């Protein structure tokens, strides 16, 4: 009997001890969202993550924007390096962006990103793949003044993943400069000529009135962005995190991977992009290359 008493006491104590495996502790980290596409300059947004208990407001978010980093982009093939200039631009989600002026992306080019901030260094490398071509795009009237947008993509030779970014505007003045990923707009390959539905990017700040459909008279700015396989890994986890965080059947507990070496979160990715503007009122309109 004494044996059982001993066992019981030791088990009880062991279960009361602090768990030995890793617990949840906030660790401040640099978050990188950088991109380069053909015929465009490099763009890099830098922020710091924040503890989940912090409030999220303009003021607190401003404190998390990294404005004093030293950011370089190198065209690896031409051994050409440029220091990016940080500037305020309200059209970007972070309100602050680092941009190159001389180095522009080209298809097949490899580009390295180097960041120095607060005595630490991070780097990443990416290549711009061939873009996809559009076979067809069509608008379908659904109800009232709402339209569904569908497209058919011509696969690229490599069968690489791609992402649809999308933004809307009503006038030339409010034309967007930053296109967030469209809802369900991340695809792991483009080997088949599937018809895909292009959905409006989700807006959590006004979720009650959110619709996947587009409005009459609004310009729909669409980018088809071919990317390396890592881009799919990153953006598919990102999409899942933003969509399913409250889903009990398919729960989320994943952190997006990163291709930034040195311990930062985020992504530095080269995109092969084709851009189009579609306006529902003029259906059908031929796709217009904005390049």
């Amino acid at each position, binding site marked *: 009997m004494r044996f*059982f008493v001993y*066992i*019981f006491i030791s*088990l009880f104590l062991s*279960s009361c001890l602090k*768990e030995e*495996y*890793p*617990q*949840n*502790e906030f*660790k401040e*980290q640099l*978050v990188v*969202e950088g991109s380069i596409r053909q015929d465009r300059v490099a763009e890099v947004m830098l*922020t710091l*993550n*924040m*503890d*989940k208990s*912090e*409030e*999220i*407001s303009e003021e607190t*978010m401003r404190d*998390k924007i990294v404005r004093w980093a030293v950011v370089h982009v190198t065209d690896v093939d031409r051994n050409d390096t440029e220091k990016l200039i940080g500037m305020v631009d309200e059209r970007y*989600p*972070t309100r602050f962006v680092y941009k190159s002026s001389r180095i522009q992306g080209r298809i097949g080019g490899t580009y390295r990103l180097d960041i120095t901030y607060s005595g630490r260094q991070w780097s990443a490398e990416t290549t711009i793949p061939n873009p996809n071509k559009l076979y067809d795009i069509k608008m379908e009237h659904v109800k009232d003044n709402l339209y569904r947008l569908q497209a058919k993509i011509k696969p690229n030779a490599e069968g690489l993943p791609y992402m649809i970014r999308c933004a809307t505007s009503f006038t030339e003045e409010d034309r967007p400069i*930053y296109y*967030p990923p469209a809802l*369900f707009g991340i*695809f*792991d390959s483009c*080997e*088949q000529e599937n018809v*895909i*539905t292009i*959905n409006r990017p*989700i807006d*959590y*700040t006004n*979720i009650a009135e959110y619709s*996947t459909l587009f409005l009459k008279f609004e310009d729909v700015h669409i980018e088809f962005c071919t990317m390396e396989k890592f881009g799919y890994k990153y*953006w598919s986890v*990102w999409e*899942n*995190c*933003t*969509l*399913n*965080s*409250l889903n*009990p*059947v*398919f*729960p989320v*507990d*994943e*952190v997006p991977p990163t291709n930034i070496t040195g311990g930062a979160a*985020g992504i530095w990715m080269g995109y092969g992009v084709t851009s189009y503007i579609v306006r529902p009122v003029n259906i059908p309109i031929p796709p217009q290359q904005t390049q």
Partner: protein
Amino acid sequence: MKHYLSLFCTLILLVASHIAYAQQDSVAMSVKVEQVTVTSDKRVFSEADRYGNIAINTKQLFSMPRIAGSIDIVRMLQYSPGVIVSNDGDTSIYVRGGDAGQNLTLLNNAPIYSPAHLFGFFSVFNTPHISGATFLKSSMPAQYGSVLSSVLDVRPNSYIPTKFGIEGNIGLIESDLALQIPMGKKSAIFLSARHSYISWLVQAISKIDMNVKYEFEDYGLTYVQELGKVGKLVVNSHFNNDKADANLSLFDTKALLHWWDSTSSAVLETPIGDNLTMKNTIYATFFNNKFGAYLIGNDFFSPSGVTDIGYKHTTEWSINKFSLLGGVDYAHRRIRPQNIMSSLTTQNKDAQTQLTHEVALFASALYKPWRHLEIDAGIRFSLYNIGSENFFNFEPRVLIATPFAESGRVWVAYNKTIQYLQLIPQSNASFATDFYVSSNYEHPPQISHNFSVGYGQSALKQQLRWSVELFYRQMYNVLEFDTRLNTMLSANYNIYDYIYSGVGEAYGAEFMLSYSHPKFDIQAHYTLSRSLRQFKKLNHGKAFAATTDRPHNLSFLAVYRPTKQWSLSATFLYATGGAYTAPTAIEMVGGSFLKEYGAYNGARLPDYHRLDLSVTYWFKSKKFQRNGINISVYNVYLRRNPLLLSWNVVEDEENPEVYRIKDASPALFEILPSISWTFKF
């Protein structure tokens, strides 16, 4: 369509048994009619014939607290030692640190792959239709295989009633009816049916803007035939069906969840002489699950299922101090893992169908060399085939027990168990969207080494009983499934890429105390345990708490019968909150806030506890054998036991320009009163 096939098989078996009976009837022979075993033990749980295992007395379930007017055999297992308390809404049981898919449920020797209805309120068993059950978790006899943690062996009624009987229950959300129909002195039929009208309750508990329809139904048929020297034939068929539809205004989403299980089996038990008994079973089980949704202009549909056809044979032979048992099992399964089809993918419906064969030979011997020593040793050899891949395993099992002084016993048990058919969990809670896959070389069968040592004692003429049992388990190739909904829709999706194999360890102590008195019964169980997992691909390879790791588990059950008419009962459950993965930080990428998650299962849900009360008034009636009104209250003190914890970015209540990340912890049932009428005549 296949459930009709299953019922058709049952009819064929019925006809075949009649033919067999007709042949036997022409020969004069003495027929030994099996008597219904009536136990004087009023406990719901009593010690089974094997140490540390549990026999469930269904006749005593009628005095237990009811949930929504119904009593349930699987739900009541939560009040037994070693079974971890599961959350509201969880449809499975968790035994000794094991996962939901490591338990096997048998009905008349045939497996049932979906033993519970949605939300776990009800199992698929109509209580009046079953005579009892045995719950095996400590020492697994050699004839049970392909399961890692536990077996719930449910037996349908198999006696020959002397007269026609009707038994039923009419409640607020479901009603059931059971018939016993004698067909002469040597055969009988038992029929049962249950149907729910639960949609209003599901609608009431939905916390989001959603239109939900949900119904379930169960049907059972058992045919019993005494066959003289040939023995007794029990043919059983069971069909359960769940169907849920939901329309969600957000994203214009429609979802469908439909699953059904159809099981038919025939067991022929043949005594040969006084010391030899043979038992032959054939069975067919069809389990199908369909999960589909219409989401933002895209349809996706995810069928999965298992078809299981098998044969079992056991021979038991008693000679002197030995009881020997030997036999063979065979199961052929057609497994269809979850295979998402949508307008975005072009996967072939049957592309991933798996055909498997499992054969097992087993033998065991119970030896009682003297009064205070019992040795039960067995071994099971199994051969498993899927395509060109083969597995061969052996599972030794041994139990050494020393009953002493009529009232006490000490036992030590070791079992090695293997499981080839794997249940893949979609989420932290066991849910109807879970699905089955076969083991293969990439994901070999799960293996568990189970050790236990126990001590039990009774006093006061067995009115007072207590026991303690320590256990330790080392598990290999346990599974975690870590996929994403959007990944599942991709053209290159392969389920096995997201199934991870790792190791697990569980250990603990189970304590039981019970006191039985003519006017009241008290049973208390406490389990102190840990369950850990380690996977190379999860949590940076470091060990983490299993989802079912709940160090403290306490259950308390009391029944008071002041008079013959009144029965009052109370149950209380307490458990440490389950492990889950919580966010630690937030970042802004892609124009959205993104949560960064911390250590895998590194956080805890709030502790679970709940009190249920029940009162039954039994009317005096000469017409009825049982006639009572039951009023019960589930979760009396409105404890919010969250189904899960989610974290969302929400607008601050005071300052609309400020957002915060807050936990949303939906509780399924805050309180649930019910009233029901129970009758039997």
